[in-house]
């Protein structure tokens, strides 16, 4: 059934009260006019009428007036019921009780088939009339009952507009009465984008988002949902969203993250000292240490560097989740970005007997990226490649132009992954099948890497064959292709990121081209 505009809905609702008022006024006025005329005629013909005869005239007039009202109401009742049934199946909110088919009146007056026809029409179009609770029909007053569940339910029409939301659903209503979902999506597609894509490809589809918050960390009334969305092309409620409130389960993890951010600051002090003293000692003792001892020094330095990287990952993830991660995009050179971590990466590879080869052509165009955060992404990917490959294995870092992007790929020939784990790979705290037992890590490196790459206007993807190894590809826009858009955003593009504190990644895609 076509959804009506608010104005149309109001007209539906207005018909009956207005019609009743007008008709009743006419009937009463007509009756009064007749009464007054009779009195005038009687007065003219019999000026000396006795008092009891006058009383009779008044009583008769009153009785006929009352009868007129009763008969008019009775005569209009089918019209009232038909119109209230129509308003009802149109889904408009109304003060009228929808007609109950089992009412004896409808049997007697033979109105029942007409009402039933209206309800049947509505049913055949896939809409359930919100019938009177007392009728006991299975679809009785569903909308009202759904307000009693803690599960949020939202229905969207084909334009993505909210046509129904129960009380538990996180919905915002703006000044114009327009409703929107109050949900903050981080790295994944949001519902609107997903639905738009479905419209082009699918007739029926479903997707689940987990751990989606309605407010930022620290804001009051923050809730965390698992969001199930089903899409059915062409139906009245094309998209149905079910939101399970799992705040109790997720909230403690969130609090942990804030605590971690604090702890990370404290950790940096000792890391500074360890890295600094190792750096000095390694140089100063170079002349007297044996080959064996040199290797121990290398391992110490590699471990301290890794520790520092993990602390940065945790801090960045915490910032990202609180929408405090700031990205300063400018013109950068892939070789320069890599140069800042080259020594560290070579050291890490050689300390674990991996061969790290790097091929970044000198004539590669500059990219638009944030230097600091991108070095962390490359550090994470290479560190993973080292962790998930075998002694003596080779790791290749290759940069190449791909359309308007520069692709930087990191390939290892290690344990790889089956395809079913790839979808979860970039989720927070996700650790792949074997990594739980064999390799230490926080499971946060890929999560934050994806967040950073997408914040930079890039993409991250992975190809992997179990037992053969994996390739992670980071695609970043060539600076020349986005320079105009970046400049249009102002020299100080960090303002642009800060301004859009929710969904800033999406806004960021504005210059994606």
């Amino acid at each position: 059934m076509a959804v009506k505009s608010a104005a149309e809905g109001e007209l539906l609702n207005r018909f009956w009260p207005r019609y009743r008022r007008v008709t009743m006024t006419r009937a009463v006025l007509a009756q009064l006019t007749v009464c007054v005329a009779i009195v005038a005629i009687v007065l003219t013909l019999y000026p000396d009428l006795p008092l009891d005869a006058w009383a009779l005239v008044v009583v008769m007039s009153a009785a006929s007036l009352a009868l007129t009202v009763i008969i008019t109401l009775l005569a209009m009742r089918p019209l009232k019921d038909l119109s209230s049934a129509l308003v009802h199946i149109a889904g408009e909110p109304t003060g009228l009780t929808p007609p109950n088919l089992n009412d004896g009146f409808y049997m007697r007056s033979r109105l029942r088939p007409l009402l039933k026809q209206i309800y049947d029409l509505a049913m055949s179009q896939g809409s359930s009339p919100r019938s009177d609770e007392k009728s006991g029909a299975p679809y009785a007053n569903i909308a009202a009952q759904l307000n009693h569940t803690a599960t949020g339910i939202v229905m969207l029409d084909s334009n993505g507009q909210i046509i129904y939301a129960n009380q538990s659903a996180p919905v915002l209503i703006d000044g114009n009465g327009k409703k929107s979902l109050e949900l903050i999506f981080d790295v994944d597609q949001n519902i609107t984008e997903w639905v738009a894509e479905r419209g082009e490809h699918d007739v029926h589809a479903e997707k689940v988002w987990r751990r989606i918050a309605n407010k930022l960390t620290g804001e009051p009334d923050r809730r965390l949902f698992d969001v199930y969305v089903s899409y059915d092309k062409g139906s009245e409620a094309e998209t149905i969203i079910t939101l399970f409130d799992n705040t109790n389960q997720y909230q403690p993890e969130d609090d942990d993250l804030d605590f971690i951010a604090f702890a990370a600051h404290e950790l940096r002090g000792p890391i500074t000292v360890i890295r600094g003293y190792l750096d000095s000692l390694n140089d100063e003792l170079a002349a007297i240490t044996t080959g064996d001892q040199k290797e121990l020094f290398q391992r110490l330095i590699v471990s301290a560097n890794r520790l520092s990287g993990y602390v940065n990952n945790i801090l960045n993830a915490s910032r990202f989740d609180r929408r405090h991660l700031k990205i300063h995009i400018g013109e950068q050179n892939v070789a320069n970005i890599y140069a800042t971590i080259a020594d560290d990466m070579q050291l890490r590879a050689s300390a674990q007997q991996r061969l790290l080869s790097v091929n970044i052509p000198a004539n590669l165009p500059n990219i638009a990226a944030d230097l600091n955060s991108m070095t962390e992404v490359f550090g994470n990917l290479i560190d993973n490649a080292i962790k998930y490959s075998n002694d003596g294995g080779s790791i290749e870092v290759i940069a190449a132009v791909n359309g308007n992007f520069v692709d930087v790929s990191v390939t290892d020939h290690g344990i790889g992954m089956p395809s079913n784990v790839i979808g979860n790979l970039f989720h927070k705290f996700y650790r792949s099948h074997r990594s739980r037992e064999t390799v230490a890590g926080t499971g946060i490196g890929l999560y934050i890497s994806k967040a950073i790459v997408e914040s930079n206007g890039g993409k991250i993807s992975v190809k992997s064959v179990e037992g053969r190894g994996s390739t992670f590809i980071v695609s970043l826009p060539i600076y020349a292709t986005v320079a105009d858009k970046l400049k249009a955003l102002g020299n100080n593009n960090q303002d642009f990121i800060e301004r859009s504190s929710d969904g800033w990644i999406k806004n960021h895609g504005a210059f994606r081209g």
Partner: protein
Amino acid sequence: MAIKTILIIEDDRFIGEMYVRSLKNAGYDVDWMVDGNDGLIAARNRPYDLMLLDVMLPERRGSEILQILRGGVDDLIPGTKVVVLTNFDQTEEARNNMEKHADGYLIKAEITPKKLLAIIEKLGASA
């Protein structure tokens, strides 16, 4: 102007000693102050070529010191370069405020003495 004299304002003893040691070994003339007040006084008493400034300091924060020295009408330390060295995760605003008046802003955990020496050399060469 090559950098010769350096003032370090740093309250962590291990970190302070680490910087002092490597900078002295590299031939720099180094003074080290542990709290913010002493650091501010030292900075005003002697025209250093470079000041390494921590943020979380007792008595006076690094941000306050920088504001006093550089935030007014006159730059009170015109001949001094300032590098902020911190492990503290400042808000973007606070960080921007400091970066505006500084020649460098570094995370201590990312900077080994060797890297610091390279950065100081570069700063001196660019002057």
